[in-house]
């Protein structure tokens, strides 16, 4: 069956076969291949060493601790925040709804950096204002920083989950005599359970692979992600770093499997039965709860504003914590080191382009083109979602530092590393958009004589352009701020702003780090504004250019 289908594709639709081959080759080379390579790297001795060394046992335990704490707290904060914005209709809900998105648009390590500037040994709040001699470094700081870094993910997922709950169901429960709390417990929360699980998976994989925050505020509290890095860069010990990275994979795979299983088991039960959802407003929440939720939103927003503000302030301050004289000294440093900044933007944009094209192709191949082995294609595309970025980094280093694929240190491998990391999300976005398209649209294109590839380019792609822009933006923004995969791949010739910021912070050069971080945020925002300007215009042009008949 499989072979015959390939034969048909070869005879009738070579364009599609080429696209299929391209996607499959990419996934085999840059997803499956490196993972196999890294899995085969550690020797038995490496495994024994990893298992018996107390330092690494401690790191594994620490990873489990942060994983549980940060996942739960991010999930909780994100859910509460999403509930406040979508259901409780707190005052200023529209404004509060944008705050976490803003946080998503800034590199995640900015939170860590801001924490040091605000709450560190010489922190503005702790030392300067309160005169405390506390230390943010350690588990509590890491926990706080990760919560702030990852709650926007939970917020995004739960926001759409809450919005998908038909308010009519909540009204019906109220009508049947349920109290407000009972409605929440018996109707609303059960219906958003799939969303909660999905968010939990995203966050836990993120926490497992998180590199920036443990590096900046972890202090002596070492987790596996940082251990992998020091083993590889400090000791050049491939075997142990690969083994440590693979240990990370255990909880990731367990979580991934659990999520898939629960999702399959609950899909039927949570599919909303019946016709059109009502346009009723959701029932109101109790006033005290509304104000409590408002306070949460306000505190989060203030903290976000403070963290962004303090980074900007740090950029313009002579020596943080010692000499608060305003200065442009750090800004000048940034101007002298625009290379990393330029690389970050260029690589991220290229990666976003690659990721968008691959996501669209993979989604179309799996969902519409009825190609053989599409289940395998689907899994391979989703696979990076279960791989902590740190492990991916080690895998890339191992797979591509020897011929025939000697790519370490090149721009290409950094771009590919970025694209692979965000492919699962882009793929999901595109697949969801294609799923929304009526199948008759590309069928009619085929009926009118279009090959599958032309149906994709002339009908499907223009119709899912919003998803394409979303994929591009997501991949771009995340790539600009990413550390965990790329920190293994950068070289002297290919510096990245995010890595440079981390190194500067590590050396205690807060001013320069803050200045570069501010510049990165500003340039990212400007590029996004530019992108919307361009796509907004070109999408209109696209419509009119086809008007010629």
């Amino acid at each position, binding site marked *: 069956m499989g072979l015959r289908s390939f034969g*048909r594709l070869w005879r009738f639709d070579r364009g599609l076969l080429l696209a299929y081959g391209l996607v499959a080759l990419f996934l085999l080379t840059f997803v499956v291949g490196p993972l196999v390579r890294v899995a085969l790297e550690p020797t038995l001795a490496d495994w024994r060493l990893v298992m018996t060394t107390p330092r690494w046992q401690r790191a594994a335990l620490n990873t489990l601790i942060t994983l549980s704490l940060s996942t739960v707290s991010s999930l909780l904060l994100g859910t509460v925040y999403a509930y406040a914005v979508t259901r409780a209709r707190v005052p200023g809900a529209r404004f509060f709804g944008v705050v976490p998105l803003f946080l998503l648009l800034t590199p995640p390590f900015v939170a860590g950096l801001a924490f040091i500037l605000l709450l560190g040994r010489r922190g503005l709040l702790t030392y300067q204002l309160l005169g405390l001699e506390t230390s943010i470094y350690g588990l509590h700081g890491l926990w706080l920083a990760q919560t702030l870094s990852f709650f926007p993910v939970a917020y995004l997922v739960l926001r759409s989950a809450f919005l998908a709950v038909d308010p009519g169901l909540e009204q019906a429960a109220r009508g049947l005599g349920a109290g407000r709390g009972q409605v929440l417990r018996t109707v609303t929360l059960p219906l958003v359970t799939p969303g909660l699980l999905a968010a939990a998976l995203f966050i836990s994989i993120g926490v497992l692979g998180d590199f920036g925050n443990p590096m900046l505020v972890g202090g002596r509290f070492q987790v596996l992600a940082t251990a992998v890095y020091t083993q590889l860069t400090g000791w050049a010990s491939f075997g142990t770093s690969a083994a440590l990275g693979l240990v990370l994979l255990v909880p990731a795979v367990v979580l991934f499997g659990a999520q898939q299983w629960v999702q399959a088991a609950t899909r039927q039960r949570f599919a909303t039965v019946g016709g059109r959802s009502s346009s009723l407003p959701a029932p109101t929440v109790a006033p005290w709860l509304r104000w409590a939720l408002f306070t949460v939103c306000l505190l989060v927003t203030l903290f976000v504003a403070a963290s962004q503000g303090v980074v900007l302030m740090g950029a313009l301050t002579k020596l943080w914590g010692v000499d608060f004289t305003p200065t442009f000294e750090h800004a000048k440093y940034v101007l002298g080191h625009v290379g990393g900044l330029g690389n970050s933007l260029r690589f991220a944009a290229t990666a976003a382009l690659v990721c968008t094209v691959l996501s669209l192709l993979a989604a179309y191949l799996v969902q519409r083109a009825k190609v053989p082995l599409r289940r395998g294609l689907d899994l391979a595309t989703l696979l990076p979602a279960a791989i902590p970025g740190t492990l991916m980094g080690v895998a890339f280093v191992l797979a591509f530092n020897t011929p025939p694929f000697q790519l370490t240190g090149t721009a290409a491998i950094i771009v590919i590393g970025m694209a692979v990391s965000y492919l699962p999300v882009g793929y999901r976005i595109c697949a969801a958009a294609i799923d929304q398209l009526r199948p008759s649209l590309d069928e*009619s294109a085929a009926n009118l004589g279009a090959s599958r590839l032309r149906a994709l380019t002339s009908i499907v792609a223009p119709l899912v352009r919003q998803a394409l822009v979303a994929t591009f933006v997501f991949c771009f923004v995340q790539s600009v701020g990413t550390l965990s995969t790329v920190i293994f791949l950068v070289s002297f010739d290919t510096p990245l702003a995010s890595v440079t910021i981390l190194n500067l912070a590590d050396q205690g050069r807060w001013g320069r780090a803050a200045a570069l971080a501010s510049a990165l945020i500003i340039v990212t925002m400007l590029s996004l504004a530019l992108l919307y300007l361009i796509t907004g215009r070109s999408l209109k042009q696209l419509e009119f250019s086809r008007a010629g008949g």
Partner: protein
Amino acid sequence: MPAVEGAAHVELTGLHKAFGATTAVADFSLSVPRGSFTTLLGPSGCGKTTVLRIVAGFVEPDAGSVVIAGVDQVGRPPNLRGVGLVFQDYALFPHMNVRANVGYGLRMRRMGKAERVERVQRALELLGLDALGRRFPHELSGGQQQRVALGRVIVLEPEVLLMDEPLSNLDAKLRLRLRAELKELQRQLGITTIYVTHDQEEALSLSDQVVVMDHGRGQQVGAPEAVYQRPTNRFVAEFVGQANLLPVQAVSTTTNGSVTATAVGQPLVVCLPDERQPATGSAGLAMVRPEHVLVGPADTFAAPGAWQVKAKVVSSGFYGAFQRYWLALEGVPEPWLVDLPLDLAEYVASGSTAPTWQPGAAVAVGLRPGGACWLW
């Protein structure tokens, strides 16, 4: 009779298709003459759309062949088949205006711009769309969208035109008008057409040939009149129109395609739908269309010797054009349905029309000659 004679243009043989455990199409064969209008008629889930999609190439049959103009199409992808399909939801490309939609297929064939523009223009004029060329699909009415969907296909001059319930998304009045236009256009272009619908009236009024389908199988193939007046089985009888059922027993066959039978203890001539002859003495079921039923007062009604049974009015209802009665016939298990015209003179005189018979009234029921038809 319209152009049913002539060479078979589309020949479907032994088509079979199962989706998992459900059989969508089973042992389906059909010969579509060149230039004819053939309709696949059946309830939803009967497999008619699957047959159409097999012809269009969106579904590969498990067995059987699709031969168009002498060329076997099985295994060929949809874009190389040269058949035009009008989708139920029209599937107009929302990001292209009318001209671009109609010109899309020509562009896929890499036709030069000058010729393309000209052919699009001709198609638009043919369908009365030339003023709407720059509009986008969402700016068109349902009827206009339907015409664009049709124009987009016929501009390519396909071998075969396939239509999947193209009128089902339109309101009743518009449907009637477009039905007439469609028939006229098809006749004018002489294009071989396979049309899918669940609307029996549409099938009867449009087609040269009707194929009634159920459970993936063809139940009867014939001219609209034959399918309506001489259905071969109970399913066809009930699906194509209203059918009153009458238990009969064959007595002796005659040569002119009918059988003498007894029904409710009286002799009755029952027409046979095809060549098959019921065995003498075999029990069966005959069908009577409502318009072939005669109703009269209980005593003085039918001619002496004619078939006649006593009946009671069960209920009746006003349907605008007629009064509908449900009658319980003595010795007939299922009630019959009869539509009778209303007395206009009475309405003119008194401003209201009382039904001729009230529920409970005793009446007599007879049949027009040839009104009963044997069901296999």
